């Protein structure tokens, strides 16, 4: 097995675990962690592609690294915003569950 394949398989595994978690985990914090795992899979893939796509004489293609660091910052910001929302929700309602609003929100009375 070449190092390329190893990276590709690792990325696949991370993305798969992330997708599973996003679909199946009920708690929003677990969903958020699943999003981060899936994001890490994408980052691993991007990093590996940078190495593979390097032109002769260069250790790696520099563009993906620049994009990668931006994507990591974006994912970090997303995580921070979501955690802040979750904390606020726990403060207001004592639970971070999403499920209460799931059945027919139009029935709620104001």
């Amino acid at each position, binding site marked *: 097995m070449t190092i390329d394949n190893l990276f590709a398989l690792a990325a696949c595994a991370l*993305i798969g675990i*992330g*997708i599973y978690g*996003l*679909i*199946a985990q*009920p708690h*929003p914090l677990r*969903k*958020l962690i699943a*999003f981060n795992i*899936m*994001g890490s899979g*994408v980052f691993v*893939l*991007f990093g590996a*592609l940078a190495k*593979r*796509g390097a032109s002769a004489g260069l250790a790696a*293609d520099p*563009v*993906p690294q620049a*994009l990668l660091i*931006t*994507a990591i910052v*974006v994912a970090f*910001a*997303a995580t921070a*915003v*979501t955690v802040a*929302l*979750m904390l*606020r*929700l726990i403060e*207001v*309602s004592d639970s*971070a569950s*999403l499920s*209460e*609003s*799931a*059945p*027919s*929100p*139009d029935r*709620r009375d*104001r």
Partner: protein
Amino acid sequence: MMADAWTATAGGSLLAAIVLLPFVGMLFGLLLGGRWLYRVALGTMPMGLFLTFAIADRWADAKAPLAYVLGNWVPPLGIALRADGAAVAMLVMVAGVVCAIGLFARADFAPKPEASETRSTFTYWLLLLAIWGALNLVFVSGDLFTLYVALELLTFAGVPLVCLAGTAETLRAALRYMLFALFGSVLYLLGAVLLYGGYGTLDIPLLASTVRPDSIARIALALMTAGLLAKTALFPLHVWLPPAHGGAPAAASAVLSALVIKGSWFLVLRLWFDAMPAVVTLPAAQLLAGLGASAIVVGSIVALRQERLKLLVAYSTMAQIGYLFLMFPLAFEGGQLVQGPATHAGVLQAISHATAKAGMFMAAGLVYAGMGHDRIADLAGAARALPITMLAFAVSGLALMGVIPSGAYLSKKILLDAAEHSGQWWWTAVLQGGAVFTAGYLVLVLGSALRRPATPLSGVKPVSKLSQWMALALSVSSLLIAFAAIGMGNAELIKNPIEPDELATTLAVLLGGAVLAMGLARFPLPPGPTESPLRRLAMAPGVVLERLDNWVRRWTSATLLLILLAAVFVGLTRLGPAA
């Protein structure tokens, strides 16, 4: 041709300015804080509007897309900003709508001299500017990664708008929106990474010239499209839309419904028409429009079954999103996706929906503020108490229905033309039938609001005159957009609205809408005995679709459908003509 795309044109720096302006305003506002933030925000808006006019002027002069190369670093290493006709039109529309929403929101979110600053008066203006800046970036970005960042900015600014009220219910809606949007964006990013791996660039013109319909491009297109649809809330991925748009304050719902969803929709347009026209196939476009048609049917019927006005408007947004996707299969010529009349119609539809829907949400919010509730069944007397507001609601409804000379009318005409040319008669039926549904909820609300109340209304709170006029101004501008489009050379499509033919169509649509409203509304219209076998029969499809909607909006179903949709797109892009 290619070299042209990488050189800055005259007026290109205006594109950088229109992206920077809202963010600069935001930073100044943040720095000055308090009462100044609101003044800075309101001051930024006319400047932005002026800038977009300048851009439109330069674009009309040059008769070619404007371009700006940041720091003179040429793509693929650098980043270029570009504005074609669609982008210029969207820039002007967004600036106009943002100005109107800013004036509307004065009554609710301007800091009061006697009261101390609150969190919502502070954040609202920051978020409004942030959304504006992010949207401008979406319209002018020239590469798929900058578009990703712009889209994330848009989501981060949109989500807090949902929960300005800070109640558990709105926080839950915001959290749902955020998590689903994140799922969508990570799929988009995965697609972009695969594309970079396959083709070594994310610059749109460069990609369009090299991309081939191989499996990398297909999978990337499917992942990116599915991710964007999740953010646009196209049926069946609308899990987050009704609670988020229905629960936010009116000034925020107007932004979310009119503008934010247009960002990701515009990106689908860029992706399909500009970046990968060689990869998309007619079957995939048919699926996209098919989802749009289902959105129209399900969204409209569930809207008719709502008890609260704001949720009705939120579901109507879900239906109107469907319209935006109808143009994709109609833009095919000879098995190739081409920018032509159908794309113009799509952009026109987006513009007229943005103006009309912003007006409609404003009117709904004013009704809530004035009457103290927004239960549709109890709106009797609202038309007398709030005449300008109800007029705005009626006009925006007519504009969405596509009455002459609204933008929706012109767009419908162009699409009907395209459907006839390409022999896709089934889209003719959808285009004609959709208006009946829109008429349905218009009749439902107006029928209730025009009734004489059983007891004279008391305790109607006065609402801001300026806000009412802004709602009306947006609705009227949507109704008159077709005139603005005459310059595009479609003047022959605009007929006299009181010509017997056209009048008959309008009346037939309204009548059909009245029948739908009577049959499907949860409360009897006109008021009277409720339980009859006929009525139960008429209610049945509504009940079934409402259950379907509830099932689709469960988290597990929605996420599974998202993955399924991506897989189906991969399959459908294989069905095209061999490369």
